[in-house]
């Protein structure tokens, strides 16, 4: 299940993408540069189709910085996953990161967020109970 396991990189995995029922749980373990971020994006979108996932959780709790490219990629992943039929939740954004993201004026409008993995799973199972899980979030309520 490790998205990076078979890559040429000798070092420890930078991200892991695990399957949990109909959900994918992707954890980013360390700061990624732009090309790593792009590879993470294509790996993840790939796996959504492979596992027929209905929900994706991206855990960024280990990151203490998230640059504009990173947050734009996360937003794009959310959008792409929606096109492939999965709801995406970003979890574990640290206070400093949240502050930096809004101070830099990043458009975070369409990202679903939750405090941590547990909350993210709760959010996804709630979303699954709705008649149309693909509908965008009710603004400000979730």
């Amino acid at each position, binding site marked *: 299940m490790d998205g990076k396991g078979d890559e040429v990189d000798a070092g420890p995995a930078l991200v892991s993408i695990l399957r949990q029922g109909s959900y994918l749980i992707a954890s980013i373990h360390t700061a990624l540069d732009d090309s790593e971020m792009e590879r993470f994006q294509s790996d993840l979108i790939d796996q959504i189709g492979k596992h027929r996932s209905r929900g994706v959780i991206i855990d960024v709790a280990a990151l203490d910085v998230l640059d504009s490219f990173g947050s734009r990629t996360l937003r794009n992943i959310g959008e792409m996953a929606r096109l492939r039929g999965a709801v995406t939740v970003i*979890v574990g954004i640290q*206070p400093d990161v949240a502050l930096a993201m809004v101070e830099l004026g990043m458009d975070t409008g369409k990202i679903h967020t939750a405090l941590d993995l547990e*909350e993210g799973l709760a959010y996804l199972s709630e979303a699954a109970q709705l008649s149309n899980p693909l509908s965008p979030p009710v603004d*400000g309520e979730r």
Partner: protein
Amino acid sequence: MTESQAADLEGALSFPALDRQDEEQLLPQLVAHLREHRSRLRAEWASRIQDSHLLQAMTPTEMGAETTSVYDNYVEVLETGSVEALQHYARDLSERIIPRGVETHEVVGIVLLLRDVLARSLFEKYQRDFGLLNRVLDAYEPAANRIANTVAVSFVDERERVIRQQQDSIRELSTPVLPVRERLLILPIIGVLDTERARQLTEQLLIGIRTHRAKMVVIDITGAPDVDEAVANHLVRTVDASRLMGASVIITGLSPEIAQTLVTIGVDLSKMNTVGDLQGGLEEAERLLGYR
């Protein structure tokens, strides 16, 4: 401008080099004179303070003790030329009298009175020899100016320190993040919001969200007297950042004036969830959390 006036001005900062020798000979004389007539001069000074209605926050006993210490410190500075001990004393004194409402002009006033009293006694002593009197004043004035300067600066420094300290404690007190029930926080904003405070407030809120695992936050701005564009933008950012942490925000307590101002200056608050008052905000939050 005469030469002595010029020297006088300069003396406020340093002893003029020309007078070094004179000073060395004359200052011990002055000091001896001032020590000899200590009780008379001090009493005169104290009565002048009374007449000018200065330091009325202090009792006569305290006044006696403090004037004696100031007098002794004053003479000591004349003798040694070092203001360190005086600085120390002035800071200590300020610490004691600032909480009782003593103003800067009073402190400067009493020092200038003492300077005046002592100068008059020197006039009296040396009035028969103008040349000598001139030299005596040349030696006395710079030192006296330095003393007045030191006391005033020490007092103002101490005052500023106290003000800074109070500002810090107000700042800390004024941004409490309060858990009301599970997953629900209130953040009452009281007082003027400036950029620094808004930033600090956002930080505390985000940390609060993580600690309490909050899903809803009610920010109540009833206590904020004025909201301008900058503050409104801060609020929008706070809402966005909280959302990134997985918590939604309800803003309550927008006064009619603030509501009108915000719409008039055209701040985009469409993303903000607002409810009229804190009570309504809490009810709405509880509804969204599924408590009712």
